[in-house]
């Protein structure tokens, strides 16, 4: 039972982060390799707002979330906007540079030492007992719940809201979307904002659960195979990809060797790329665009 809970928690983390990769890729065909850093940046924003507003924790969290939404939008407007309608490769390289820049900024402002925003906010992280003698920490349970909420929200948003439809339309054919009067910059900025927002939720909850330092970026990197295994342009795929990767990782930790944990997501990815390079749920023709 504990085994299943461990898989569920890890899968939630990967899925929550992977949704950000999928959002941006699906809407603008750009692989955002700075997503791990943006997620970590969101967590560090919470470190700062928590220090400033330790007496009102909820405000601190909401403020950090609002800031991460803005950071995502600003990254698009000031950096990625120039890449719109250009070759995808230039855009991907720009995100690599952005990631390096963010890592430097984080070291400069918050140092490399571990941070514990939950202590700053004066919150406990009690262990909850589940049926079957399994345990889960409060913030890990919140992580699972957030992932479910975020995915339900994203599905509904993309399916039913006008801006969600525009995001799907722009993803299919940006030129036609523009010709129909849709401001591509607004759509892409929204995708970046939402992606950074969901990433930051993951980063903040992980930090609240177990603290953070600059190695958090590794988690972001490990979520990337989850998005790719699922097919990069499919949210459902990201969800299932996250489950597969998490199951493989937790299984190997338990039955083989915990030291292999960080390698497993990429091993699964390599196997996947050999068998079915366009991912479980991806569209085949997407391949040549990456």
């Amino acid at each position: 039972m504990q085994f299943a809970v461990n898989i569920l928690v890890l899968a939630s983390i990967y899925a929550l982060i992977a949704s950000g990769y999928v959002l941006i890729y699906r809407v603008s065909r750009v692989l955002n390799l700075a997503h791990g850093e943006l997620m970590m940046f969101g967590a560090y924003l919470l470190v700062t707002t928590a220090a400033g507003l330790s007496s009102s924790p909820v405000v601190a969290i909401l403020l950090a979330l609002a800031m991460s939404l803005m950071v995502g939008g600003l990254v698009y407007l000031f950096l990625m906007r120039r890449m719109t309608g250009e070759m995808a490769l230039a855009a991907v390289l720009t995100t690599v540079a952005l990631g390096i820049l963010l890592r430097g900024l984080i070291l400069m402002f918050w140092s490399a030492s571990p941070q514990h925003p939950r202590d700053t906010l004066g919150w406990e992280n009690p262990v909850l007992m589940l049926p079957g003698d399994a345990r889960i920490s409060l913030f890990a349970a919140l992580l699972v719940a957030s992932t479910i909420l975020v995915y339900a929200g994203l599905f509904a948003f993309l399916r039913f809201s006008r801006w969600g439809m525009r995001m799907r339309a722009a993803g299919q054919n940006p030129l036609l979307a523009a010709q129909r009067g849709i401001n591509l910059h607004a759509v892409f900025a929204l995708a970046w904002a939402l992606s950074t927002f969901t990433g930051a939720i993951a980063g903040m909850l992980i930090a609240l659960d177990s603290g953070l330092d600059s190695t958090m970026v590794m988690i972001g990197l490990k979520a990337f195979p989850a998005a790719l295994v699922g097919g990069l342009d499919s949210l459902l795929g990201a969800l299932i990809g996250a489950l597969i990767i998490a199951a493989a990782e937790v299984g190997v930790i338990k039955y083989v060797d915990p030291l292999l944990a960080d390698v497993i997501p990429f091993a699964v990815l390599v196997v996947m790329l050999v068998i079915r390079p366009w991912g479980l749920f991806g569209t085949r023709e997407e391949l040549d665009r990456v």
Partner: protein
Amino acid sequence: MTAEPLLVVEKLEVVYQRAITAIQGVSLKVYPNQIVALLGTNGAGKTTTLRAISGFLGLDDARVTEGTVTYRGIHLENREPYEVTRHGLSLVPERDKVFPNLTVAENLAVVPGRRGRSNRRMLEQVYHFFPGLKDLRRREAGLLSGGERQMLAVAAGLMCDPEMLLIDELSLGLSPVAVQSLTASLVAIRNELKISILLVEQSAVVALEIADMGYVLENGRVVLDGDAQRLLNHSDVQEFYLGHTGGDRRSYRDVKQYRRNRRWYG
């Protein structure tokens, strides 16, 4: 014509990939409430002309290098497509004219409003001109027939609340029945909404039947223009776009003769 023209294209030159000149010195005018046909064979530069008016994206690697596009006195060269659409010019492209994975209703719903008119009101208008779309509204656009797809494309263009529709290849690949119904819709749209239509066609019969004016493009230049009736009766148009040959089959020599004639026009 006493009214001011709505759209004035003057000496337009478009270069692809910084090297390939696709059209050169193209000039045309569209007056309010007019249907204007833009004719020409494959590769003449019709699509390029429409795209230059409606705007290129970076990935097109195309630029207007000379000349002007003025709409109601506003310069539109090298603007982004969404800006041009919001000025009231909406394009129905030649290929990829609908979002295949979106339903018919979604294809219409993604279009932002203009002039403060609600999406619902525009939708009513669109269903008035294309009642057939209402029954198809839950269908994915990728599953539509050619005629239905063209109907949806024109309808989505109308959702942009335009004062001028730019339609690229209305009849290409469609059955005569579908073409008949579409041209009838276009005439109704022009008459009821008082908008203008710049209609690109390879089939001169289809276009000149409903057009007031026409331009003939060849090798990126305008070689003939005039009112639709005059063009229909013009001997060159009769021979090369309508296939009326007075009985003889056209031989290659005749084509060369025609080319020589062209030069005197140019």
